[in-house]
């Protein structure tokens, strides 16, 4: 029979091997490709390693500018999704009572359909002949369909916020559930009103969950490329689209890999700086 440490190894080794094979090794491969000197495809015969690709990344202003734009878009999406998901999670925790499970399942219903289908639905909603324009024209607010709402940076942000909200509610819901109700009861006994209890106890104690949500949305959104290619038009082009284009259209895997590594490092730095600025242990106390 396995001892405690043996059991731990038994449980830890399979996921570790899985991560090693499908996460760490691919990252190392991408890093190695980014250090190839030549333009284009994988060829280790021309010397390795080289920083040629990274020089090109920093010498071409569009790459860094597009990374900045994507980071701003990701910030807006992550902040909005977190703020909008908070009331949902609050309702599920404190108001839904025995119906919480049903509402939670309803929250997850969109995941039963494909991601692409949900994004495509927004094309129908935002298009010149879409639902929003139909409502505006039917109400007589506009005589002709308003200009296309789709194919813009705004369309990308709106669609991504919608896509992320159900995901974003879950960590906040988990954080709110962990709050010891006796704190709220003690505050009420001491004369604190509902808003004071919310502002002084609920928000600070759920902040780690909210911040985790923010980063959970922010990090993948910086590298997003599917939604921009469907509803972004010429304005909504993101950093992830550049990487996708380099791999699939330009056949320039080496530069694409370098851009991917730069994005990875930039996001890591941003997250570390944010965590440094916001001391989770202090805000949660």
């Amino acid at each position, binding site marked *: 029979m396995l001892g405690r440490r043996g059991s731990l190894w038994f449980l830890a080794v399979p996921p570790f091997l899985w991560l090693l094979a499908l996460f760490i090794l691919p990252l190392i491969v991408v890093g190695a490709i980014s250090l190839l000197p030549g333009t284009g495809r994988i060829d280790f015969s021309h010397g390795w390693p080289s920083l040629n690709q990274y020089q090109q990344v920093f010498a071409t202003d569009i790459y860094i500018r597009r990374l900045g734009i994507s980071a701003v878009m990701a910030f807006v999406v992550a902040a909005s999704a977190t703020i909008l998901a908070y009331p949902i999670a609050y309702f599920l925790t404190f108001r839904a009572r025995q119906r919480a499970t049903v509402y939670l399942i309803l929250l997850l219903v969109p995941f039963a359909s494909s991601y692409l289908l949900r994004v495509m639905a927004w094309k129908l909603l935002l298009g010149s002949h879409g639902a929003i324009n139909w409502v505006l024209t039917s109400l007589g607010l506009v005589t002709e369909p308003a200009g296309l709402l789709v194919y813009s940076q705004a369309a990308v942000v709106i669609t991504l916020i919608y896509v992320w909200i159900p995901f974003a509610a879950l960590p906040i819901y988990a954080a709110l559930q962990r709050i010891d109700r006796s704190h709220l009861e003690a505050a009420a006994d001491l004369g604190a009103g509902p808003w004071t209890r919310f502002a002084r106890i609920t928000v600070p104690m759920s902040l780690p969950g909210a911040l985790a949500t923010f980063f959970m949305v922010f990090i993948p959104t910086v590298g997003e490329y599917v939604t921009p290619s469907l509803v972004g038009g*010429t304005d909504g082009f993101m950093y992830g689209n550049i990487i996708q284009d380099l791999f699939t259209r330009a056949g320039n895997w080496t530069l694409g890999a370098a851009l991917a590594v730069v994005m990875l490092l930039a996001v890591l730095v941003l997250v570390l700086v944010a965590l440094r600025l916001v001391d989770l242990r202090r805000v949660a106390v």
Partner: protein
Amino acid sequence: MPARPLRPHAWFILVTCGALLLAACQAQGSGSPGASAAAGSSAASAAPSVAEPNALSVLEWSGYEDPKFWIDFQTAHPDTQVNFDFGISDSDILGKMEASGQDDIFHFYSGWQQFYVDEGLVKEIDTSKLKNWDKVPDSFKKLGQINGKQYFLPWDWGFTSILYNTSKVSGTIDSWDALFNQAYAKHISMWDDGPAAVTVSTYIHGYDETNITDDQLAKIEAEWKLQKPLNLHYWTGEYTDFCPEVQSGDIWVAYAWQGCYATVLYDKSQPVAYATPKEGRNSWVGFYGISSQTDSYNLALQFLDDKLAKMSCENAVTNFYYGCVNQEVMAGITDPVLIQAFGINDPSILAHTNFTPLVTQAQRDAWTAMWLRVKGG
């Protein structure tokens, strides 16, 4: 109970298990088409009489896997398994052939022939084994030849020109510069492709497409950057994000192939016309090649021969509105819409058509990089 450190023999067991797992994965991997091809070739060299596998892998463009496109082969070889892999651009298809070459057959478009030959990715086609080869006009056959050898089988073809909505555009469009007209701002759509953008600019400015200078490329980049805000979007799929927007009336002027033109003529959703620019239309041809690494060469030949057969070609023409190189099929078109779409009744159409030339890899890379700067700028 205090935790005990892992004993050396436990490490040994773990490492052995890991090694066994990797070995199992490798064994599993040898079942993949690429690995079986390698295994097949070594077996073939040991025993030349071994039969070819009764399976084909085709590197295609999404949509071409539709059985209508290869119905003759399917009918003749019902037991043959045909698998499709997909590429999203000519560069992607070339990259996939370079990276693995595991597909027996690949499909790409004009301008890319030389790269496959130079890199040894393609096997010469034994046209004596193609019973439908004599239905292909010599002009098309020549396009698939490099250094006098028939490396590629031409199959689908068509035009590129300006498709426009006649109820939104006043007068007739007679130049490619309509794509740069401010009057149609936010109702223009360009294909998302760098070489295509360069081609359009060379037509407008009269540049030599095979010899674009750095200054000319800089000018081309500047004009496409100015053109960028005029687009509703850059389209990527003819029948996914392009034609529906033409049918809805949101796109008025676009870089287009004749497939969408025919579609809109059929459904009459919008009044449209297909320009004959004074600089000339562009014409493209799709080619099939057989991978140099295939161990199903004869089966691949049969697949290509059946692609040229009547039903497969007719379906390409009548269902997808692409031209097919089988001249008997094209000569048999009586549908007025298709006659209009292919310009069959216009004897001068070829005189006003530019065929995509062969360019170097460096030129293509430069054009694609330029387009990335346009999109990202």
